[in-house]
């Protein structure tokens, strides 16, 4: 059964230094507030997993929380590059960042295998790409029925998956809807999970195309209104495109970034 708790307690008790942590949310429902709490608690040596390590991972990398990044597209969606990610890869600042790189389809299938309790998943991609040579988590495999050459990708089973959702009830059942990305798979693939929600309600009213994660597959639930801002929570608030655009000049320079971090993350409480 999920424990209903505060964000700071959830992060303190569930995430340990050195853990493999996935924070998912495919442009929608990104767990921004939880990411900031990880930075505030100065978690270190994390292997961060995420299909689209956008602004929140730029901040975590720049704050020195990550040792390794597993990802498939590292940009600021609709804006451009991630400068803290670039600085870490190209110059090792503030700490060197090891990377393990995939395509979206590869990453999605790695979560699918993880959620299914299988060691690998199969897809018909990757052939001829340079990605195959850069990681031992992609291997060619021959179909036992047709003889076709396919790609096997190793399952991902994070120590902890963190997501944001619209609602939970008081027992810790979680409900999300809209672009649901890869969150269900990421939670089911993980050993433990933290879900931040816009609100905790007595009863979950059914929503179109909803995903429900029952309380017994979730470790901790914390109520964090606007916890996905500046990404969005369908039905609650819109994506703040201005904040994404403003991140570009802030993140280009180490000093500007450090000042931003002090004022906007370390300087505020969860």
């Amino acid at each position, binding site marked *: 059964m999920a424990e209903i708790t505060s964000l700071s307690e959830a992060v303190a008790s569930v995430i340990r230094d050195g853990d493999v942590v996935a924070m998912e949310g*495919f*442009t*929608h429902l990104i767990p921004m507030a939880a990411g900031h709490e990880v930075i505030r608690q100065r978690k270190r040596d994390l292997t961060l997993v995420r*299909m*689209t390590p956008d602004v929140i991972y730029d901040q975590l990398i720049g704050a020195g929380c990550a040792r390794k990044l597993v*990802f*498939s*597209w*590292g*940009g600021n*969606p*609709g804006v451009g*590059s*991630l400068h803290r*990610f*670039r600085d870490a*890869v*190209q110059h090792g600042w503030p700490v060197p960042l090891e990377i393990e*790189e*995939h*395509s*979206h*389809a590869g990453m*999605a*299938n790695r*979560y*699918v295998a993880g959620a299914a309790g299988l060691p690998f998943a199969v*897809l*018909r*991609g*990757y*052939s*001829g*790409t*340079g*990605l195959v040579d*850069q990681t031992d988590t992609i291997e060619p495999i021959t179909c036992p029925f047709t003889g*076709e*050459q396919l790609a096997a990708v190793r399952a991902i089973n994070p120590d902890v998956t963190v997501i944001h959702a619209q609602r939970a009830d008081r027992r810790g059942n979680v409900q999300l809807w*809209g*672009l*649901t*990305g*890869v969150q*269900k*798979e990421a939670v089911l693939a993980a050993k433990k999970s933290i879900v931040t929600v816009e609100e905790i309600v007595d009863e979950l009213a059914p929503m179109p*195309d909803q995903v429900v994660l029952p309380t017994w597959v979730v470790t901790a639930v914390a109520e964090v209104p606007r916890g996905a801002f500046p*990404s*969005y929570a*369908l039905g609650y608030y*819109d*994506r703040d*495109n201005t904040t*994404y655009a403003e991140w570009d000049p802030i993140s280009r320079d180490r000093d500007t970034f450090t000042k931003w971090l002090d004022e906007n993350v370390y300087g505020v409480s969860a």
Partner: protein
Amino acid sequence: MSEWTTDEMMTVAASRALVGATSCFVGIGLPSQAANLARRTSAPDLVLIYESGAIGAKPGRLPLSIGDGILAETADAVVSVPEIFNYWLQPGRIDIGFLSAAQLDKHANINTTVIGDNYRDPKVRLPGAGGAPEIAASCGEVIIIVRQNKRTFVEKVDFVTSVGHGDGGDSRKKLGLRGAGPSRVITDLAVMEPDPVTRELTVTQLHAGVTAEKVRKATGWHIAFANDLKETPPPSAEELRILRALIAA
């Protein structure tokens, strides 16, 4: 001074290329602009599919990212990310994949990963693959829209993120890729198509006002021109009006 910019010519030419297609898998940036213009002009029934899970998106303005809320809110269906790749893209259900590139080579292979020879110590770290490798592998055909200059148009990409025509000839088929690969590259200067045998990109259309010399100077290899080189019809007043309204909105 012409009445349109080279970028506008490129976007209009790309939108016209979608005539007759049923469905289109749209990458971020320029492809999204052209696909949304096409839905308002040359291809009103085109089904726009975004990797965020939106199928049949009908946004009333340009989406600012592939996960813009307006895509999900206007879509025929919203599905998970594993589903969009495994059920919709991989089996070849989608006619056209619409991609851009940071580097593109003479066989239309795409690099969006790193600039420089050393992957582990790159000159420039780019965002990476995203959905592009599977779009390039699985769509019926691929249209690439990209601004043309020597930095982008290189003889050999530093890193193959998404396979175009591989090393040329039948190398794409040998790799087991199902779709036909890039059928057209549309730039701000010209339109290129792969040679039917060698699969090397050949200029088949110059945009109005562009010389062959200008294209040569913006290409990092000795580029071939078709014998029956055509001129791209300039954007119509209607196309320009709709495109400008779309970008301003």
